[in-house]
């Protein structure tokens, strides 16, 4: 079937298999920041923004993204870069495999929540698993980033 969508501002039209998942569509177009960590919609690694909302690209048919706008880390621009710097300064990325999904959800959170508390941050990001960091360094990076941005 034919779909037409926008990925990182670029229009893509393609004939796809009906069963194709959005994650595989994105990876096949070179957006390999999008990672798969599970098959049960539990890890958050594959998070991308669809019309500004964070979703799990592993659990969405590419067909469903027809007519929508998708943003992956490759297209997240300055915002992602700014937050990445705080992550790097804490050594919070570790193996880095969960970083793209986390960064996308942090961007979504920043847009949605005004001056979130620590508890609200944890709540919003609870669907992003990380096995390396123990989450503390991520929290330090997020708090510093949000502070910086609000100045």
């Amino acid at each position, binding site marked *: 079937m034919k779909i037409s969508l926008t990925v990182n501002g670029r229009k893509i039209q393609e004939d796809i298999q009906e069963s194709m998942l959005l994650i595989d569509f994105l990876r096949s177009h070179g957006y390999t*920041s999008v990672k798969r960590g*599970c098959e049960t919609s539990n890890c958050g690694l594959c998070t991308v923004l669809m019309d500004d909302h964070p979703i799990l690209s592993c659990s969405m048919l590419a067909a469903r993204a027809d007519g929508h706008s998708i943003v992956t880390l490759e297209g997240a621009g300055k915002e992602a870069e700014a937050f990445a710097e705080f992550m790097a300064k804490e050594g919070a*990325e570790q193996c880095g495999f969960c970083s793209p999904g986390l960064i996308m959800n942090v961007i979504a959170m920043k847009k949605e929540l005004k001056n979130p508390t620590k508890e609200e941050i944890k709540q919003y990001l609870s669907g992003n698993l990380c*096995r390396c*960091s123990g989450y503390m360094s991520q929290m330090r990076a997020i708090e510093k980033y949000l502070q910086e941005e609000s100045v």
Partner: protein
Amino acid sequence: MKQISQPVVKKDAAALLSGKPVYTDDLAMKDCLIIKLLRSPHAFAKIKKIDTSKALRIPGIEAIFTYEDVPNTRFTLAGQTYPELSPYDGKILENIVRYVGDEVAIIVGKDEMCCEQAKKLIQVEYEVYEPLLDFTKAIDNKIVVHPEDDYKYLVDIGNEVKRNIVSQGRDEAGDVEKELSLCDVVIERDYHTKANAQAMMETFRSYAYLDAYNRLNIVSSTQIPFHVRRIVANALELPKSKIRVIKPRIGGGFGAKQTACCEIFSAFVTWKLKKPSKIVYTREETFMASNSRHEMKMHVRVGAMKDGTICAIDLHTLSNTGAYGEHGPTTVGLSGHKSLPLYKLNASCFSYEVVYTNTMRAGAYRGYGATQGIFAVESAINELADALKMDPCELRLKNMVEEGDIMPQYYNETANSCTLKDCLLKAMELIDWKNKSLKTDLGDKVRGLGVALAMQGSGIANVDVGSVRIKLEDDGFYTLSIGATDMGTGCDTILAQMAAECLDCEVDQIVVQGVDTDSSPYDTGSYASSTTYVTGMAVVKACEQLKEKIVKEAALLMQTKEEELVFDGKMIRTLDENKAMSLNEFAYLCAAGGKGKMLMADDSHSSMVSPPPFMAGIAEVDVDKLTGEITMHDYVAVVDCGTVINTNLARVQVEGGIAQGIGMALLEDIVYDKNGRMIANSFMQYKLPTRKDVGEIRVDFMPSYEPTGPFGAKSIGEVVINTPSPAIASAVAHASGQYVRTLPITPEKVLGFKHED
């Protein structure tokens, strides 16, 4: 020191945080054939017949291989130095399957969909055997997991395979029975730790291709590229010279990738079909068909006097290695040798058996047996403190190992660097121990405190080898080649920091690369907490050599004597400062023909000792009186890892290890059904701690100085997972009155609804 003990940003941070294609599956060529594996639905069975004819008719299917198509040699998947201590008990495919998930057929096709379709059409006729699932009944069971005749082992490990014993042994220091008989109090308990999944975010994966020289190239997410070369050579019956292994960025390992689970399949397929092939394990396969922590049952007897003097500890460990023996004989050793030395004892005894069952193979997971043993010994010490009505910290301060002590259960090594006492005192201060009681009633909840100590090793003494090569390049920068495998921990950066410190330059001036067995110097790999300590020392030695070479070459070029020259990292000048040359100029001269020569140095290191890092952890948890729910309130940890090389990365290691330890203590449990099928085989059923589950984790360091380590450093990667289980168990016991001795500590067990097994 300018570069050591600094929060240097990881060299790969920018790439990882911008989502660059640097991991195995990002790099695989698009025309790779896809490999899927048909796995056994039975825990123990013989394959009588396999018919692949229907499956082969599916469009897109390239080949299907069964046990009849693969080499007959037995080998081990364990990433260990040859001769491995793990038995050679497996094949690529075999006509006997020994656990639910064991490989039956290799399906190769153009995409995943056709492979999955073909998988359903392979007809297998099994003769199903009764499986051996309970590891406490393994020894001398009528069911023998490895009845075959060509089973072999390379080293005496106390193996009695027909009794299902992979390995057994006993180490006694002093007369334990006599000491225990003299004690005022003897605590005798059983503790049980479960198989846990390492659960790194990137599942197992590798791809293979043939190069212009008809050599087999394997790109793999592995901790052990050089061992993979040997394992694949063994499995495929090829000379090692035919094989090259490349390690790109890895999405975590935690020991899981110290076992070469998937590489043999892509290697075999590519060698056979002469086409590139790729295998990516699903999360389900990673759970049910790779490797996990060894499940262990430990029997502990601790004897002490009324005044709190601990006299003797007797520990017996029974370890479940599953269907294959990878890391079985070695992990069990750590359960005793890295728990008993925490205390000064008159006598100690450690005995063990490791047994086969028809469950998934166990393997390496951070802590490697020490985690299990420390849960048992530290829990028993906590129960002793409660029995003596003594403060558990006071009891420890009175008995713990100190610098200069000889550790009889630690191969008689001396603790040459140890600030464990300061670690505990600092942890007590951080949590405000003196002003808190072990139990505080909060109304609906009760808050409890618990403590534990831990140790680990730094590399494997006389076994691990790290080697490095460092080259001065023509612009005055350096290329550091290492065989150690950064798996997200940041060892590339840490080793570059050491090189920069030695060479008096900025870390940016040191270039590092991933591992390529063709071009990287040999390294046993990143496991056993060895990289900072062992490979780090090789970096120091190589850099010292290079500095000498720089001065020697400069003396020729500057027409002066070596003794007259000083190299400060930027300039090479004579003592009288009459002549000077920048490193940059010097490097260009070296590269210019006819004048100088290109400089490089290499060295390797292996240590005769394995100095333990130490740590103290204190858990503060809340237990709901009615539901039994356990909430992590606070966790403080203070670590002696010798000199801290990278203050950020060390801290994150500690925080990450504690979070995994919290998972082990409270949540994680690989559960099988009565037929031996793993039912906790996804992130939906096997719960990792989320950021809402770990509470606050606070970390500090009490650096000692380890004389045999680079800049005084010891290891940190593994010791950090060892304190949470015993500390949390004790905190929960203080809060609830219920001592849970079988992990994980669930609300149900706390309220006594589920009996311990």
